[in-house]
């Protein structure tokens, strides 16, 4: 019996907890004669318990279930540790890496690459998107070129990138930037173009023009679309980073996993994968927070805010 089994039995039908949560006192004081009623009451209490815990528990239910079955499969010998180590071993590897301090070096290196790549690529995408979105001339001149380049997978440039930049940091920065550039560029361009023409007309007739028109009407109108691009780009950063770091590196999460593979340390490989997942989730939450902050006016975000 693993520790997860006992945990499950704790979550389930503890009537006293359920009673406290449900708040109605008509439960477990029952006699033997009212057994059916009692079971029904307990079931309804589980329902109440689930309802009470759902907001924070529900998103984690499936991952938890997967980990439990994984642990069980490993313990009963269905899974060889060379294919997939048990979760406990992964935790142990994580702990060891933390104690030795090695993990921090890798995470720091990867984070720096992700952030700088995102800033360079995203910043360029934003600037060019604003440019082509605002000026027809810029669109005529640049858009066709950019659309052609967009259709080249960033990773197909890998051989050239290695030739151009060698295998050091600039190569990784380039790869991440190129990949991040296009979602931000496209969504910025689209956002600017899809700003309500009626609003622009109104603003002009109310005396707004130039920068004030841009600041008060066009930019805020394009913001929801720009943020979609940013969120998409943040997801892409990690994908590109994995590839960039597995080619050649002296540090970074990708380097750590590649290195571990050489020595068949599947647990360390898994630690690396989980780190990517966590950092990805972190980036997503961050961009969501930015969205909620800057799109408070948007009806779609207000509803969530009021309940949450």
């Amino acid at each position: 019996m693993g520790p997860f089994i006992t945990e499950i039995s704790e979550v389930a039908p503890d009537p006293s907890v359920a009673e406290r949560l449900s708040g109605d006192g008509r439960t477990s004081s029952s006699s033997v004669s009212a057994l059916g009623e009692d079971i029904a009451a307990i079931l309804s209490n589980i329902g109440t318990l689930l309802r009470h815990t759902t907001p924070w528990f529900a998103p984690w239910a499936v991952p938890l279930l997967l980990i439990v079955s994984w642990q069980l499969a490993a313990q009963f010998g269905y899974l060889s540790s060379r294919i997939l180590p048990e979760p406990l071993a992964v935790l142990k590897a994580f702990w060891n890496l933390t104690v030795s301090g090695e993990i921090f070096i890798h995470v720091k290196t990867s984070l720096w690459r992700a952030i700088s790549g995102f800033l360079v690529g995203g910043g360029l995408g934003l600037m060019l998107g604003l440019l082509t979105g605002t000026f027809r001339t810029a669109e005529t001149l640049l858009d066709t070129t950019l659309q052609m380049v967009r259709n080249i997978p960033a990773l197909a440039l890998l051989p050239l990138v290695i030739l151009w930049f060698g295998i050091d940091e600039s190569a990784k920065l380039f790869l991440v930037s190129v990949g991040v550039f296009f979602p931000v560029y496209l969504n910025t361009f689209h956002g600017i173009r899809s700003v309500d023409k009626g609003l622009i007309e109104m603003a002009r007739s109310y005396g707004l023009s130039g920068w004030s028109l841009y600041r008060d009407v066009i930019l805020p109108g394009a913001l929801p679309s720009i943020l979609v691009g940013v969120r998409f780009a943040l997801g892409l950063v990690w994908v590109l980073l994995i590839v960039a770091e597995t080619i050649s590196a002296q540090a970074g999460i990708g380097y750590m996993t590649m290195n571990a593979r050489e020595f068949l340390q599947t647990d360390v490989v898994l630690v690396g994968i989980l780190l990517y997942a966590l950092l990805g989730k972190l980036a997503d939450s961050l961009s969501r927070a930015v969205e909620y902050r800057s799109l408070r006016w948007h009806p779609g975000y207000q509803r969530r805010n009021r309940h949450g």
Partner: protein
Amino acid sequence: MAETLANSSSTVARIAALRKELDDDGELTVNGRLTTEPGGSVGTTIDLRHLQKSYASRQVLKSLNLHIAPGEFVAVIGRSGCGKSTLLRLLAGLERADAGTLQLRNHQSPAAIPTIQDSGTRVMFQDARLLPWKTVLDNVRLGLEGNRHHTKKIAEATLAKVALADRAAEWPSILSGGQRQRVALARALIHQPSLLLLDEPLGALDALTRIEMQSLIEQLWLEQGFTAVLVTHDVQEAIALADRVILIEEGQVSLDLKVNLPRPRARGDAHFAELEDHILKRVLRHPSTLDNSDVEGTDAQSRLATFNPLAWAV
């Protein structure tokens, strides 16, 4: 709905009180109409001669002539596609005429002003066109120059005029349709326009809210004395608000009728109903007992002589 009704009574009460007050800018609030006073009018004079406008080979306005006196409230009616909205867009400077002259004059610029920017013209659109990312207050002070503290005070005072002072900090998306149009009205009035153009601003509102908005617009017009041009397809609304009802057909003014009913106008009034019926029949090209000849354009004035038996028509 209950909320709207509650608002309507408070609006009327509030405006009644406000009518006696001085404006926040230090300028005189117009109590009653200024149009009768020579030289002191704040409204724009409009002169249109042989105005033409075409869209892709379709001629929307053919040689349109129209004179609107300062401070006058003119309603423009007509079937959809007759060119009434085009006329408004030309007046607003959102589009340019192909031929003819368009002159707007007000007390700030007595000489004719060919371009409309900063001419004191403000538009209220069919949809409120509030910026969803700005609060109600910031929407109202859109385009207002000056330091933020000062403009905030003016915006608050203007919002109070449309009885929305307590909603200043909210986002437009949670307001009702009528409230949004009231914010749009406040946004237009804050610039103290000499010409207010209304492009079917009440078309999308329910009947009760519409009546409430009509009386609000009437009150503020009486208070401030600007020239108002209202484009509408609602004949009743046109008669309820306007000094003159103008019918546009086939790109020309085909009916120009003075409405001499006392304000505020009761919709149940017999003269009101008679006039409404007459105009409706005219719009629908029904043969009217009062209107034997099909009068076009400038003949409208002479045709009006046939209305003499009726007390309400000049």
